[in-house]
């Protein structure tokens, strides 16, 4: 982990200017993605996970969106200061995107071969015949049977899972070093989802790619992540290796998320709702839904990410001294009294 990360996001803030005020969709997010590693961004809807990923290659509509602050270093260069042309050449050729709904990502009036060739020809200097050959190879790579004959079929002739494979083939068209996949299996059945997750794993081993995988499903995270970034209301709550997050979750929000998965023994919903995006609460964004919240959680800024042993960091004041642990629930009120008294 001493080598320089391929992608390094530092204090990224993406805001949207709307009639109701400024929506702080991403509000100071930092994390790294190393070469050949899969990083999962996980969170509920509205947590800012998609906007984070779209800010990397500036896919967000600007205006109303705006990257207000922060930097995105890709291979050492800051993407946020690049020209539009610079970003465009990065998009597609070095960073590929896969979206949630394969139906919407393919054009129904062109053959899938044409759409893959288009991606190849716009970034590489090859002849049409070579592009066709590459398209067949790509379809084979993503596991489409009888690729040479399927290349001339139209999107409607493919099932949902197969369409997602085609979309992945397009994203791979220019040998990207990084793939950003935004909920790529959410629209698919579990049996097909398992196939697509296998494909991602296989591709990563084969091509040594970095993958940013966005999902709300912790089961999927456990299946493919090397490292995890847990987001809530535009902030990073906790980040760490997948083992740390699942076996030793530190942040109360991460714990709560793991406890509300159906199929587990107890089914504990998280009380309350996401805070307002235009007027977020002071202190920790999670404080009004957090059973461990003390008065200090309700004032000031979101606590910084405190480093914990191993590859693990958490944004929670209970871990301020670097190790620490959550207090017992019955102690929470007493802590307030003690701190109040000291003051």
């Amino acid at each position, binding site marked *: 982990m001493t080598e320089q990360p391929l992608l390094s996001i530092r204090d990224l803030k993406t805001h949207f200017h709307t009639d109701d005020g400024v929506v702080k969709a991403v509000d100071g997010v930092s994390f790294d993605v190393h070469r050949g590693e899969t990083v999962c961004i996980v969170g*509920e*809807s509205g947590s800012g996970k998609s906007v984070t990923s779209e800010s990397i290659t500036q896919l967000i509509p600007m205006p109303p969106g705006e990257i207000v602050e922060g930097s995105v270093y890709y291979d050492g260069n800051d993407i946020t200061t690049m020209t539009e042309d610079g970003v465009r050449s990065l998009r597609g050729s070095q960073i590929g995107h896969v979206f949630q709904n394969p139906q919407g990502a393919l054009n129904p009036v062109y053959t899938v071969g044409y759409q893959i060739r288009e991606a190849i020809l716009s970034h590489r200097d090859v002849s049409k*015949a070579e592009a*066709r*050959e590459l398209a*067949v190879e790509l379809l084979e790579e993503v596991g489409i*049977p*009888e*690729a*040479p*004959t399927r290349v*001339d079929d139209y999107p409607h002739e493919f*099932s*949902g*899972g*197969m369409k997602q494979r085609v979309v992945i083939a397009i994203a791979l068209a220019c040998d990207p070093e990084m793939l950003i996949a935004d909920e790529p299996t959410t629209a698919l*059945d*579990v*049996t*097909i*989802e*398992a*196939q697509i*997750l*296998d494909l991602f*794993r296989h591709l990563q081993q084969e091509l040594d790619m970095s993958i940013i995988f966005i999902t*709300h*499903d*912790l*089961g*999927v*995270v*456990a*299946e493919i992540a090397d490292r995890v970034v847990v987001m809530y209301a535009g902030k990073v709550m906790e980040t760490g290796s*997948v*083992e740390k997050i*699942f*076996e030793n979750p530190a942040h109360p929000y991460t714990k*709560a*998320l*793991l406890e*509300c*998965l*159906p*199929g587990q023994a107890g*089914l*504990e*919903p*998280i009380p309350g*709702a996401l805070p307002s995006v235009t007027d977020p609460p002071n202190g920790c964004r999670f404080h009004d839904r957090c059973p461990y919240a003390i008065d200090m959680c309700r004032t000031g800024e979101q606590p910084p990410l405190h480093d914990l042993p191993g590859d693990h960091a958490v944004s929670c004041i209970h871990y301020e001294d670097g190790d620490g642990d959550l207090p017992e629930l019955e102690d929470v009120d007493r802590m307030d009294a003690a701190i109040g008294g000291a003051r």
Partner: protein
Amino acid sequence: MSTGRPLLEVENLKKHFPMTRGMMKEEIGRVRAVDGIDFTVHQGETFGLVGESGCGKSTAARTILRLEDPTAGSVYFDGDDITEYDKAALKRYRRNAQMIFQDPDSSFDPRMSVGESLEEPLIVHGMGDRSLRRHLVKDLLERVGLQAEDINRYPHEFSGGQKQRIGLARALILNPSMLVADEPVSALDVSVQAEILNLLDEFQDAFGLSIILISHNLGVVRHICDRVGVMYMGELVEVGRTEELFTDPKHPYTRSLISAIPSTDLDDRSQRVRLSGSVPDPADPPRGCRFHTRCPEVIPPDHYDLEQETWRSLMDFKQRVEERHLTIEQLYVMLYPDEDEEEMDVPESLPQEEVTSVLSGEYGLESGIGDRKAAEVFEATSGHLAAGDLETAIELLESEYRTVCQQETPPVTDEGPDHRSACHLRSEGAAPLSGESESVATD
């Protein structure tokens, strides 16, 4: 619970949708969305229907509520056959059987206040005066965890989870005895899913509700259902008590589905059964067991000594040939993928060895088939295909690569109290087909 007569009995229920062509609506085929299912739901019980998209679970639910008229079969509710209900009886039935839907956004009229939406069922059924109705609505809103003052607010003022609570309130306002919940939580975040599921549980206890829960999320089903039916292509392949079905699934499809759930246990990574392919066309379901085209445990003939995986690959090959996909033109493209399509000049026949090797590669058989006889058949078939003789190839495969799974519909097997499955592997006497078909053998 299981002593008295069940509240709902579904017998051999079928719902086919005709596909028509032209002005005369000539029927050219039928989509067999639901094709003969049987199950019962007792009072106070939650029955789960699971399966992949397109397996007919939603159609089954809609037919049970008579939102669709069944093609065949009966549905007994409290002893009466609802398929024979007239209009008045149907209206009475619908008071007792209610539904909540997947998408809480589109199930409310955005221009009606919550109070108006919730009052409507009461008005339709001619119940109470306005003040009584308002009282009932307020009371129910509080019971689903909202506030009485919310009665005058509009749907857009609520979050998705809150809207689903209102949906539940609307379904319960007539005090029904049965509730059909079609993917009630799949549009919601996990943190909110738990709330709605707990609420369903609570109401079930309070009102003795019977619930039919439709979901593709097996975690959800396992959590709240008492019994579960697994559907595949319009048929129930396994029905049983939830814990039994999840811990000891009998049907290979159930096993595959359970194994496909992404688990949060890190030790489980990629320790899963993988289903190849996707669901076949319901207008033209496979012969025999409908799952045989994807089944990882499809039964090989007695006289072949093969790895299970190899037999699966050979069955995939057979299926592809049967669908008339491996024509000589297609084989030519597979052999010479770089050639420009317009300038292609396909010869009468292709070199047999190359065809065999390209097909072995396509079906993952490079490391050999294992059984000498089976390998000979594979080579002979490739030879017919290379010569462009698709028909002979189909005949050869049909007579040589036989499996009981394709020949016969699996019988329903009792797996113990309240547990049944439909799989040849489970039924006694349906031993693998032996080489009885000498008449068509090649040697």
